[in-house]
C-alpha cells in the first residue's frame, strides 16, 4: 500500500493518551509549532479531533454521486436498449414506456450509488490494509487515543517533550519499518 511505503521510509513518534482533552491539547500545540503531518488514532470518531486536525471534507460524496449517475444511466440504457432489441408489444403499451422503467432506474441508481460509496470509502481510507502500521496499538481501538507525528530525527526530542507535556502516557518511536 502507498501509505505503508511512506511509513517505512520515515521517522516519527507515537504518543498514547488516556484522555481526549490531552490529545486535543497535543494536536493544538504541535500544529502551532509547525508540525502539520499528524494522525490521530481513536476508538470512536469524534468531531473535536476532526476539527483539531483540520482536514478537508471526505471526497466519498463524489463517489456516491458518480455511482448514482452511473446507475441511472445504466438503468435507462438497459431497459430502453433491451426493449428496442426485442420489440414485443404487451398490453398495447409503447415499446419504450418510461414510467415503468423508472422503477429499474431507481433501483440501479441506489445499487451503484451504494457500491461506489463503499468503493470510495475503501479507496480514500486506503483499506483493506494488509500490514497494520507500526504506529498502531490495540488499545487505540479500546480506550486510548494515539497521536502519530511526523518529524525529523533532530526534532525528535522536542516532539517527545511536547507530547509528554500535553499528557501523553507512553511515547514510542514509530515508522522505522
Amino acid at each position, binding site marked *: 500500500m502507498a501509505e505503508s511505503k511512506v511509513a517505512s521510509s520515515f521517522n516519527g513518534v507515537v504518543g498514547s493518551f488516556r484522555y481526549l482533552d490531552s490529545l486535543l491539547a497535543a494536536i493544538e500545540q504541535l500544529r502551532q509549532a509547525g508540525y502539520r503531518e499528524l494522525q490521530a488514532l481513536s*476508538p470512536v470518531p469524534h468531531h473535536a479531533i476532526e476539527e483539531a486536525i483540520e*482536514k478537508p471534507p471526505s471526497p466519498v460524496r463524489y463517489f456516491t454521486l458518480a455511482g448514482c449517475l452511473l446507475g441511472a444511466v445504466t438503468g435507462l440504457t438497459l431497459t430502453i436498449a433491451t426493449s428496442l432489441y426485442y420489440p414485443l408489444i404487451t398490453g398495447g403499451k409503447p415499446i419504450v414506456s418510461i414510467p415503468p422503467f423508472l422503477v429499474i432506474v431507481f433501483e440501479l441508481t441506489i445499487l451503484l450509488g451504494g457500491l461506489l460509496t463503499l468503493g470510495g470509502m475503501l479507496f480514500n481510507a486506503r483499506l483493506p490494509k*494488509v500490514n497494520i502500521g507500526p504506529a498502531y496499538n490495540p488499545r487505540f481501538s479500546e480506550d486510548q487515543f494515539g497521536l502519530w507525528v511526523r518529524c525529523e530525527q533532530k526534532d525528535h526530542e522536542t516532539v517527545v517533550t511536547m507530547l509528554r507535556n500535553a499528557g501523553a502516557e507512553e511515547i514510542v518511536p514509530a515508522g522505522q519499518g
Partner: protein
Amino acid sequence: MSQLTYSQVDRDIIRAMEAPGWRYYAVLIADLIVLAWGAYAWRYQVVHGLGVTGLTHPVMWAIYITDFVFWVGIAHSGTLISAILYLFRVRWRASIYRTAEAVTVFALFTAGLFPIIHLGRPWVFYWLFPYPQFGGLWVNFRSPLVWDVFAVMTYMIISMLFFFTGLVPDMAVVRNRTSGWRQKIYAFMAQGWQGTDRQWRHYKAAYVFLAALATPLVISVHSVVSWDFAQSIVAGWHSTIFAPYFVAGAIHSGLAMVITLLIPLRRIYRLDAYITQQHLENLAKLIILTGLIVGYAYAVETYIAWYSNNVPEWQRFTYQVTGEYAIPFWIMILFNSLVPLLFFVKRIRTSTPWLLAIAILINIGMWMERFVIIVTGLAHEYDPYSWGPYYPRWVDISITLGSFAWFFLWFLLFIRFLPVISIVEVKEELPPPMRRQNGGE
C-alpha cells in the same frame, strides 16, 4: 448507560461471543432438525412437482408468496432503525441497531428463497435476470415481477454493505482480543482497521451516504412488492393504497420481530445495561404508530369496497370477512390493529412479558394479513365458476416452518460469532474520557 467506560463496553459485548452453554447447542440442534425437515419437503416438491402442494387453480399464489412478502416485511424495521433513525440522529438506536440490521439481512436471505421455491423448475431461476441469452429473449421491464427482482436484490446487497461496513471498526476490537484462526477471520473482516482520523473521516461519510441511500430504498422495496398485487386487476389487490399500506405493515411486523428477538437476547446475555427498558418502550411506541397506519388501511379498504359500489369488490370483501378465511381475517384485524393499541397503556409497554406476548401476536397477525390478501383475492375473482379455496398441505407447511428455522439459524450464528451490539456506536454515546471533568466535550 453513562456509568460505563470504554473498556467495560468492550468486555461486556465481547463476553456475549464466548463459548455458549449447552442450551445454545440444544436450540441450534432443534433448529437444524426443523430446517432439515423443510429441506426434505422442498426436495420432495422438486422431485414430484408443485402439484404436491396445496396450490391449484385458481389459487396459484398462496403460502410461498405469503412467506416471501412476510419475510421482506420483517427486513424493513432493521433499515428503519439502522438507517432512517440514524439520519434523524436518534440516539437510542445505538445499542439495538446491530441486531435489527442483522434481522434485515437474514430476513432477506429467507425471503429470497421463496420466489425460487415457488418455481416449477427452480434450477433456471437465473432466467429472471436480464442477460443476453441464446434465444435473444429479454425480460419484460414493464412487469412488476421484474421490478421486484431488482428491488429485492438491490435491497439485499445494500443491506449487506451497510451491515458489514458498520461491523468494520468493531471487528478491529474483536481482532485485538482474539487469537489463532478466529483472529485471522476477524482480522480479515476488519480490513486492517486502525481507527485513524483519516479512516474515520471517510468511514463516517460513507456510512451517512449508505444510510441516505437505504432510506428511499426501503420505502421503494415494499412498494414494489405491493405492486406485484396492485398492478393487476384482481379485486382486492387493485388499489392505490397498497404501497403505503404494505410499507407500514412491513415496519409493523419487523418491529415486532426485533422485540421478539431482543427480549430473550437481553435476558440470556445479561445485556440489560445496554438494551434497556427504554429501548423496548420506544419500539413499542413505534408499533403504536405503524399499528394505527395499518388499522387505518384496513378501514379504508373496507370503506372503499362499499363506497365504490363495485360488485366484484364488495363480493370479495364479504367473502373475506365471512368465507373460508374469516378466522385468519379476524386474527389479522385483532392482532395487527387492535392488540397493539394496548401499548398506549404505559404499564403494558414497560412490562417485558406483555411486550413479548404482543410482539408475537403481531408476528402471527402480519403473516395472516399477507395470507388473507393473497389467497382471498385469488380464490374469489370475477367469475363464480372459477372460485375455489386453497388449503395448505404438509409440503407447504413444512417449507414455511423450515424458513423460520433458516432465519433463526443465521440469527443463532450471528449471536455466536459477531458482536450483537455495536461496540463503537455505544462508545460514541458515552462521554469521552476527559482529564478535566467539567471541560465539556
